[in-house]
């Protein structure tokens, strides 16, 4: 019987992730109310920051970064379906 070599993972620095989340939340509020940026640019930047923060939580706090691909797929599969759901209904408005 041969046991395959175990992949090793070191626990991430959770406090650093918390700091990133905190700084990005402040950046979002400043961007929304204080910084002189065009409305479209503001919308894009705010969405990028929100997705970035959500990714940090999913990858490091929920440990998706360290899970097998089979498990990651369970969480990833609904995301394109969610995008299709929203996009198809928006297309109705566009027409």
């Amino acid at each position, binding site marked *: 019987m041969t046991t395959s070599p175990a992949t090793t993972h070191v626990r991430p620095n959770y406090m650093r992730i918390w700091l990133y989340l905190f700084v990005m939340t402040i950046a979002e509020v400043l961007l929304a109310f204080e910084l002189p940026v065009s409305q479209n640019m503001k*919308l894009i930047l705010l969405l990028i920051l929100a997705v970035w923060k959500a990714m940090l939580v999913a990858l490091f706090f929920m440990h998706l970064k360290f899970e097998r691909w089979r498990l990651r797929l369970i969480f990833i599969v609904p995301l394109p379906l969610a995008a299709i759901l929203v996009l198809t209904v928006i297309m109705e408005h566009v027409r």
Partner: protein
Amino acid sequence: MTHATHTLDQMRPPYPAEPGAGVYSSKLGMWVFLASDVMFFTALIGSYVILRFGVSSPWARPGAVLNVPLTGLNTFLLICSSVSMVKAYAAIADGKKYFLRKVAGKTLQDGGLKFWLLVTIICGGAFVGVQVFEYIKLVGHGITPAGYREGSELAEKALADPVKYGANIAGLYGSTFFTMTGFHGFHVTCGVISMLYLYFTKVLPEKYSAQDYRGIEVIGLYWHFVDLVWIILFTIVYLI
């Protein structure tokens, strides 16, 4: 028969995994539930986006109706609760069942599972408390799921500046706001109740150990997901 050298993997819990996804059944069950919850919140957020960008009248401007600094504080609380939850997980994975313990040469005491989970429960409870306070204030000012209440402060402001306060579609604004944040608040409340249950039935009697802490990992996944959803909601409801 050869055995590879076992190096400590801090991200692999020491219990038997089901074949396939490589995790135990309750964790797999939680992931499947979370995947279904993604679709639930997508339905809510997607409907909001469609309603908001589909109407011709202007939506109320960010900060005009909602108290963004107060919600910013709530976001901070939820982020703190998420990090304390993952610290609780790390503590029990290292076998630290205690509340606080002195460490030689360090000023700050080392927190164990009992400490970090209690911090998470307090932050989660505070989040719900602030949200209830926010709802009471908002309804008091005149925004309800049906729109601006006649004769209220917000209704008068909306009459004076209909563009800033989105006077024509206040009903849509109120109903989408209360539906999305209300369902999220319900999720947070369920999480706090579940953590309280675990705290009194499993954590205080020290039933979890470094060899088995499945309950903490599963409730942790749920809690981080609730935080993740709030990150998206905060941006699209309060800031955009």
